[in-house]
């Protein structure tokens, strides 16, 4: 197990190379000159050149990339082009906000998704099952930014129960976390349902019933744990798209998290900021995947991690 974790941690190195390279190349291809944007509208060609010189943007692209990567491995993500502050400081300020949002969102995904899936699977093809699955289908189909706006309109504008935007208190978490979590919950619900139905038809569930176990023991102890195996994978994948979703949801709800930071940085072509943000988000994703694999093994000992 420890060997497996160590191996996976070493694999992070190529991930860093890959992520930085892709972001670097994309940012090179995006139209818009960072030096010109920084110099401001109507700045003279000279001023722009001066900016370019100061920022090292006149060096060959390969050289810029290599020096960036070598800095990354030394823990230096560079300075923002905009305000000259270290990127890492900004990220450390924003990351906890995004992680908190992601945590509550994935919690909603898991709790809501599992509950709905189990409720459906216990009585398949009943009215209860069909209605839960119709709601789940809606949940999958709604784009999160739109759902966010709808929730905002209903709970903040019409009912005035919850704050519209910002990140000042626990009440602020509810709407963005729901917006982000509901889509995943719908996917988890459908996965849980089909996995549970499959497991409930297995011989060992009949054995459990033949032993005289109470139905909730049969469902939670014997069926659910087996049904969870594919669900864990889905939750892990869902966490990835959830991180992507924070970009939109943080913008909609005006939350100063990592996602919004990346959006702002892209707008101003603040390359180090974009790279730093994407890199950290990718690392979070890699760690979550590692966690998923370890959990996977904990639930199902037949899986040999090595």
């Amino acid at each position, binding site marked *: 197990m420890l060997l497996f974790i160590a191996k996976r941690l070493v694999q992070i190195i190529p991930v860093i190379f890959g992520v930085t390279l892709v972001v670097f190349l994309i940012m090179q291809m995006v139209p818009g000159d960072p030096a010109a944007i920084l110099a401001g509208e109507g700045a003279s060609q000279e001023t722009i050149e001066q900016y370019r010189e100061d920022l090292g943007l006149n060096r060959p692209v390969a050289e810029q990339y290599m020096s960036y990567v070598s800095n990354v491995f030394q823990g230096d993500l560079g300075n923002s082009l905009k305000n000259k502050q270290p990127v890492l400081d900004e990220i450390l300020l924003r990351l906890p906000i995004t992680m908190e949002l992601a945590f509550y969102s994935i919690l909603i995904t898991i709790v809501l998704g599992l509950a709905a899936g189990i409720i459906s699977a216990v009585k398949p093809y009943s009215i209860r099952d069909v209605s839960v699955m119709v709601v789940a289908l809606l949940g999958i189909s709604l784009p999160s930014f739109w759902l966010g706006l709808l929730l905002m309109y209903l709970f903040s504008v019409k009912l005035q129960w919850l704050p519209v935007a910002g990140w000042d208190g626990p009440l602020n978490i509810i709407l963005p976390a729901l917006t982000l979590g509901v889509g995943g919950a719908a996917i988890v619900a459908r996965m849980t349902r089909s996995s549970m139905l499959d497991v409930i038809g297995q011989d060992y569930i009949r*054995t459990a019933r*033949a032993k005289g176990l109470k139905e909730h023991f049969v469902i939670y102890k*014997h069926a659910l744990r087996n049904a969870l195996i594919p669900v864990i994978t889905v939750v892990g994948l869902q966490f990835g798209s959830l991180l992507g979703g924070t970009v939109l949801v943080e913008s909609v709800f005006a939350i100063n998290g990592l996602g919004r930071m990346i959006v702002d940085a892209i707008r101003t072509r603040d390359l180090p900021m974009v790279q730093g943000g994407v890199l950290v988000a990718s690392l979070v994703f890699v760690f979550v995947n590692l966690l998923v694999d370890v959990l996977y093994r904990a639930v199902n000992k037949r899986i040999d991690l090595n």
Partner: protein
Amino acid sequence: MNKEVVLQVKNLKTHFTTSKGTAKAVDGVDFTLHKGETLGIVGESGCGKSITSLSLLRLIPTPPGKIVEGEILLNNKDIVKMKEEELRKVRGNQISMIFQEPMTSLNPIIPVGEQIAETIRLHQRLPRKPAWQKAVDLLEMVGLPSPEKRAKQEPFQLSGGMRQRVMIAMALACTPEVLIADEPTTALDVTIQAQILELMKDLQKQIGMSIIFITHDLGVVSEVCDQVAVMYAGQIVEHRNAKDLFKTPLHPYTQGLLSSLPNIHENQQELQTIEGSVPSPYDYPVGCRFADRCPHAREICRAEAPDLLETNNAETKVRCFMHTEKWEVIEEKEELVCP
């Protein structure tokens, strides 16, 4: 004989409703099980023997299956009419089951010791530790080597024979009055089969339980059963003492079954078969269900359904007109018609 009756099944009917209609998988089964007795239920695939055994503990998935009629009397209490709560106290406690597939009948992610111990905790209200110890003792009793270590393992770490031993230990955990063994040796190697059968016989002597042994393997029946019920198309066609049944089978179906067994002492070129096929459970004929395949069938066999009747020996029951007084009358008549 005045042996104590443990289980009595009366006119049991389990039907399945599907889009194709109603399948009468079990259609009027009667039998009586005495204390300490081993009853074999034999028949080919699809004759309803497994559905009969699952019905006894009401383990038929509903829908589509349902016990539509009949009584299952365990010490004179009807299982069919029991409430869930009461039924759970019977399952695994008074009646327990061993299933055909030891590979899939154990939960793949729960240690086998725990799978046994949970039954003990449930029915005998023992705390965790003593229940675990009892599970280990049971594993030892069924002959699992190093039971302490094995109890902590999960099914995938055990061989097929070991898993079936675990299933047996689980079934015997609460010393049931009736053990239903549904093809317990079918999925195992022949050598392991013999060991498992031997084990079951030994344990039966120790515990004094009754066994219902479901199988299509007549060799196994001759080895372990006292009584045999032969099933055909959802009904019992012959119910007798095992020795007599093998010596002088009465029902033409039983005769066909026995003669289709290869004999090691004879040099046979071809195996005997029973011509034709089993009628569909969706649409049984009006008369005897075996009539279309029976070499002795007469007009009456296709017009009327025979009942499972006692012959001159009260211990022997057979569902065939050949063994009724009617048959002799018919024979005389037919002789008159076609000399």
